[in-house]
């Protein structure tokens, strides 16, 4: 038995309807087994949320250990009225708009192609998934040379086909282009594997029946594969939106949010205000605004999938 069939993890666990037995036969043992996890969960998962919430009402300095003065909602009004904050929110959103379509559609296409090939599956798996396990810093080091002006691999490749190369790292548009290409290359494999697993669940007979009825490969794709994959597509879409909204590594390492902070994402804004100018309370307020946005998005999605699960 494979893990795929025995372990429907959290992505699918939402529809897990196993009744929970609450009769307290083993109450003491149960809490003992849960204790180490609960302590760490309270300290390091709930803890930061509460600390952030408290600090956001004070003018705490990041370098000092005391809270500072209580300023009520001042940090929040400052953050919400700050143009740089909204710019960084927009940059994270723009990054999401740029990367999500590619990272939802291209892996689907590749997975469907791969499902039609019976041999050498391992080769595609390695080629597509290997970049995903590699640290962001290694990826950025390699791509910084690929994007290098004049001598870089990309510039040369574009030269070869006669296209003008943008300034990959020095102009805002070029920077977004290079970030999109790097990110698609880097994280493509994760979604590819999710789709591949879902495709394996579709029984072979479905296609055979369709082929006998005279459906072309294109029709099969449109009227069998994609509809049956709809839950997976929506899962991938949601995970990708959340992952893209949390972008930091690539933009920070490759561009430091540049040129001229024109690509700086929210996390770097929080980093800059909190750790460079030491405005801890202010950065905590920015953190809470961003945090609540992300939680609302995942909560809405969780409720929506639950409802759909109940309807079905």
């Amino acid at each position: 038995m494979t893990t795929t069939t025995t372990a429907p993890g959290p992505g699918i666990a939402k529809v897990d309807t196993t009744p929970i037995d609450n009769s307290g036969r083993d109450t003491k043992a149960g809490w003992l087994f849960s204790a180490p996890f609960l302590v760490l969960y309270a300290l390091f998962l709930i803890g930061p949320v509460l600390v952030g919430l408290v600090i956001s009402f004070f003018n705490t300095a990041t370098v000092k250990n005391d809270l500072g003065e209580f300023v009520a909602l001042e940090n929040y009004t400052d953050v919400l009225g700050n143009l740089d904050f909204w710019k960084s929110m927009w940059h994270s959103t723009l990054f999401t708009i740029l990367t999500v379509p590619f990272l939802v559609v291209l892996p689907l296409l590749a997975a469907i192609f791969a499902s039609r090939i019976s041999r050498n599956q391992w080769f595609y798996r390695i080629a597509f998934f290997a970049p995903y396990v590699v640290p962001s810093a290694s990826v950025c080091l390699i791509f910084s040379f690929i994007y290098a002006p004049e001598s870089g691999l990309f510039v040369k490749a574009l030269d070869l086909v006669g296209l003008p190369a943008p300034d990959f790292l020095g102009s805002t548009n070029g920077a977004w282009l290079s970030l999109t290409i790097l990110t698609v290359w880097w994280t493509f494999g994760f979604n590819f594997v999710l789709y591949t697993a879902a495709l394996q669940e579709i029984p072979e007979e479905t296609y055979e029946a369709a082929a006998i009825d005279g459906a072309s490969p294109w029709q099969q794709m449109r009227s069998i594969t994609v509809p049956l994959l709809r839950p997976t597509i929506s899962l991938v879409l949601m995970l990708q939106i959340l992952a893209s909204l949390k972008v930091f590594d690539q933009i920070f390492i490759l561009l430091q949010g540049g040129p001229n902070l024109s690509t700086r994402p929210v996390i770097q804004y929080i980093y800059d205000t909190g750790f460079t100018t030491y405005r801890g309370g202010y950065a905590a307020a920015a953190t809470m605004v961003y945090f609540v946005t992300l939680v609302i998005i995942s909560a809405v999605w969780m409720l929506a999938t639950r409802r759909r699960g109940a309807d079905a």
Partner: protein
Amino acid sequence: MTTATLSRNKETSKADKLGSKSFNRLAATCLTLWALIWLVPFAWAVITSFRPGDEITANPMSIWSDHWTLDAYTNAFKLNSIGWWYLNSFLISTLSVIFTVVICSLIAFGLAHLRFQGKGALMVLILAGLMVPMEALVLPQFMEFRSLGLLGTYWALILPATASPVAVFVFRSFLKGIPDALIEAARIDGASWWRIYREICMPLCRPAISAVGIFTFITTWNAFLWPLLVLTQTKSQTIPVGLSGLLGATGVNQAEVLASAVLGLLPLLAVFLVAQRQIVQGVASTGIK
């Protein structure tokens, strides 16, 4: 009308057999090309890291060298603290794996096989934990760790990762597959819950352990922002943080930077190649990083 449809059906089905064959061939060609393009950045980085510096300056994109050399690799070790970074990354990742596997499998065992009051509430709590984006919380997390006096220690990197809701759900759904009858029988024989956990459930749980273990290893090894904030001394840095400092650094040539990048990704690539199947099944079964 009927005859028309029939003959059309026949025609299309004939065309389809051909169509589907050529479609498959087209798919194979496209995908192979696609995969080869995906391998280019790796291949180019590895090849260039073996070329001598002056050749790269003269002709940066050539993929051939007259004097293949390991200089860049020996220099990478000499110029940077790569040895230390390796050690830190290995220790932190390994300890995180051990802690995560033990702590998450314990509570998952309780949730899967014990009956106790408050279990429903616990499940809701952990489910809610799935929605908490930790990356967004680095600033308050930093403040908390400073007041706990844990900044600059390995603990600061190990502890936050260990209470992982995803890992709990992976273990729980796996443990649920172990029949209750088996556990009841052990109980009747007088085995304690601890013994059942250790001697029956954990050995049966090996696939879940390896899936959670490999994933924890990869995520802790690749973590960037949190280690960047917490470990500030050069020698205490992890591989990703140390490597990021090489971008645009002076006195390091292209081959040395690329050699360092290759050294940084090598252990993970090795883990991936060895554990390919578990990783892929792990992704498929969790659906969440």
